[in-house]
């Protein structure tokens, strides 16, 4: 069985600039690789990071986005948040985004509370015992 490393939390705050999506993916995949995730799991984590960022940038209010990455002994957890007056969870683009998150993550939530859009997602490590 492969054991995962405990790494993080790493908290990153960025302006709502699409070009930073790749930078966040690099940071997340570097963490996940150190922690011992497989290549396929790292691909899923990269997609999840991208989806979180694009949901908060495209549907947020132009405010900075905060993401947080953390790896524990069985999963990679990511959270993202941004202040947003409106955040239409039923927007068709977000529906596609959610269906991708559902495909690559073992669980995820998206909500909008107190003017803050918030996304949480988790990719579990499949151990082979």
């Amino acid at each position, binding site marked *: 069985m492969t054991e995962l490393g405990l790494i993080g939390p790493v908290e990153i705050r960025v302006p709502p600039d699409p*070009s930073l999506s790749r930078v966040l993916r690099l940071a997340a995949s570097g963490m996940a690789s150190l922690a011992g995730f497989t290549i396929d799991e790292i691909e899923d984590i990269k*997609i999840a990071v*991208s989806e979180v*960022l*694009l949901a908060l940038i495209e549907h947020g209010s132009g405010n900075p986005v905060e993401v947080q990455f953390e790896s524990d002994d069985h999963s990679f957890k990511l959270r993202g948040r941004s202040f947003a007056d409106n955040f239409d969870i039923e927007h068709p683009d977000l529906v596609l*985004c959610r*269906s*991708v998150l559902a*495909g690559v993550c073992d669980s995820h939530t998206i909500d909008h509370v107190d003017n803050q859009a918030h996304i949480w997602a988790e990719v579990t490590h499949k151990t082979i015992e």
Partner: protein
Amino acid sequence: MEAANNNSLTVEIGADGSIVVHGDIDIAGGPTLEAAILSLENTQQVVIDLGDVSFIDSSGLRSLLGASRRAQARKSSVILRSVGPEVTRLLQITGTSDQFAIESSRD
């Protein structure tokens, strides 16, 4: 040396008119790809070469799906060439494979 474009994607038009994509089709790169498709789609069949693409997210997929929808309205289709495992996976997850004509795949 290329000027910086803050962008992880570049697009080239191949000798046969195909759109050859290099880089990540994400929220930063999607619009570049979309502009290339829009500039060609009314005069020719859309062929997108993904041989140098190893990342795509839902915003990139949206650009491809939009092109597919417009092509279907013209009784045409969008041909994807040299599709890698990452794009294949996203098409499968979202159940959108049948929106495209897959000319070839790679491992």
